[in-house]
């Protein structure tokens, strides 16, 4: 799968399999084989020890919400072709987004489609899940646990 199905912008990267793994239901991180430092988003290189010998590991993706927002004035990509705005209605009710801190202190950004903005609280327990959208694009959602 083209990495662009996730990034919307670029196809070419050493960690392009990330999109393929999302489609297969996994959120992948990388770990430096030399110093064991974990990376999410996955990196092909470890600046900690300058090694490029990395291994892939699926994240459990459970943790606490660090912060969130709900963007009412979206960037052009999401505004012009409105149906491409994931989880938005025809009347354009945008979907909140958040940052979830999971195992190893890693933080995953994701859409929060199932919780009303008023009920989203920093610190709430959530799980990050891969999601394939109707147009074939892949992304990540955060759901309460």
């Amino acid at each position: 799968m083209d990495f662009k199905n996730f990034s919307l912008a670029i196809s070419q990267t050493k960690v392009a399999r990330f999109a393929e793994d999302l489609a297969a239901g996994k959120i992948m991180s990388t770990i430096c084989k030399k110093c064991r430092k974990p990376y999410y988003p996955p990196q092909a290189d470890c600046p900690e020890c300058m090694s490029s010998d990395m291994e892939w590991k699926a994240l459990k993706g459970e943790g606490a919400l660090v912060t969130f927002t709900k963007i009412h004035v979206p960037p052009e990509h999401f505004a012009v072709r409105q149906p491409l705005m994931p989880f938005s209605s025809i009347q354009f009710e945008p979907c909140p987004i958040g940052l979830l801190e999971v195992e190893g202190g890693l933080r995953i950004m994701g859409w929060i489609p199932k919780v009303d903005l008023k009920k989203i609280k920093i610190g709430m327990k959530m799980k990050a899940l891969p999601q394939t959208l109707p147009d074939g694009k892949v992304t990540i959602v955060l759901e309460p646990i």
Partner: protein
Amino acid sequence: MRKVAVVGIGHGKFGVRSDASLRELAFEAVKACLDDAGIPLKEVDSMVTGIAGDEFSIALQPSAQVHDYIGFHPKPNFRVEGACATGSMALRTGWMNVASGLADFVLVVGVEKMTEVPTSMATDIMGRGGDATWEYPFGMTFPGYYAMIANAHMAEFGTTEEQLAGVAVKNHYYGSLNPYAHMQKPITLDKALTSFTVAHPLKLFDCSLITDGAAALLLASEEKAKAVSKKPVWVAGLGLATDTMRIGDRKSLTSILSAREAAKTAYKMAGVGPSDIHVATVHDCFTIAEIVAYEDLGFCEKGEGGKLIQAKETYVGGKIPVNVDGGLKSKGHPLGATGVSMAVEITKQLRGEAGERQVKNAEMGLSHNVGGTGQVVAVHIFRRE
């Protein structure tokens, strides 16, 4: 290293300048700057141009348009870029030219033409100032990033929407007194609080403006400055620091650690502390950013920024007047011009030429300019002698 002074300042009208192109905006500021300094362009040795976005300029080397149009060739022109901190990085680069002895007079130009592209496109371009690969796919925008900081700050310290709006009210008030400002009308707290949401909890009046504009400085060596200027303003301290690309990797979501680091370096170089500063321009791209800046610069304790604005301590006459030129919020935020415009305002204040907005007997000023959400931050300290 040689001492470096600001001996000339120039500022064009900020706003939706549908009458002018990038190079024409730059010309206005350069002309005003050289007139102010009383130095002809032929005496200037070198030039630094700050332009943040090729995508806004719709050109690959927009700085060449500028040096060409002001007739600077064949002398050196060096372009710098650091998103919203571009202008301060241009000043720093100009300072390096003079301090090193490479040049005696350096022209620093900051300019951005942002309204040639539609607003939604401008939002898109700036959104990609975050991590264009890993964050942009979630529809992140610049207001979105600062909204995440605002929500974290509110949850941790109890900062309120009224306090955020208080920053907007102050900066619009001072913008109304600044003839170069994009928006020159005061607003009420109620108007700010009832404006539509851009990115929860930030509303329209929590956000700075998409603006065209230019500003320029003439820097000089100590010897030249003393020879040509009655009121040189000395660059006493410079700090530049960086932080992670992604907001998710930040150690703090309620502070911009690169701003703290840059401030520490600048204070140390100038041999001063926060309580020595008489007037400051800080990066209020969003109202929450000004509140966080108070804290990062040491104008108040961590978490107390909301109370500082509520007590009106950042107005002229308060503990530390901040953004009394209207700030990015009301003066506007043409990316490449912003840092240079901050230095223009501080120079005016230290010269005692700020008119109605003058901070009495201001001798020491500071500018704080944040690139993106803190990927790069420049803090400069200026001194009158």
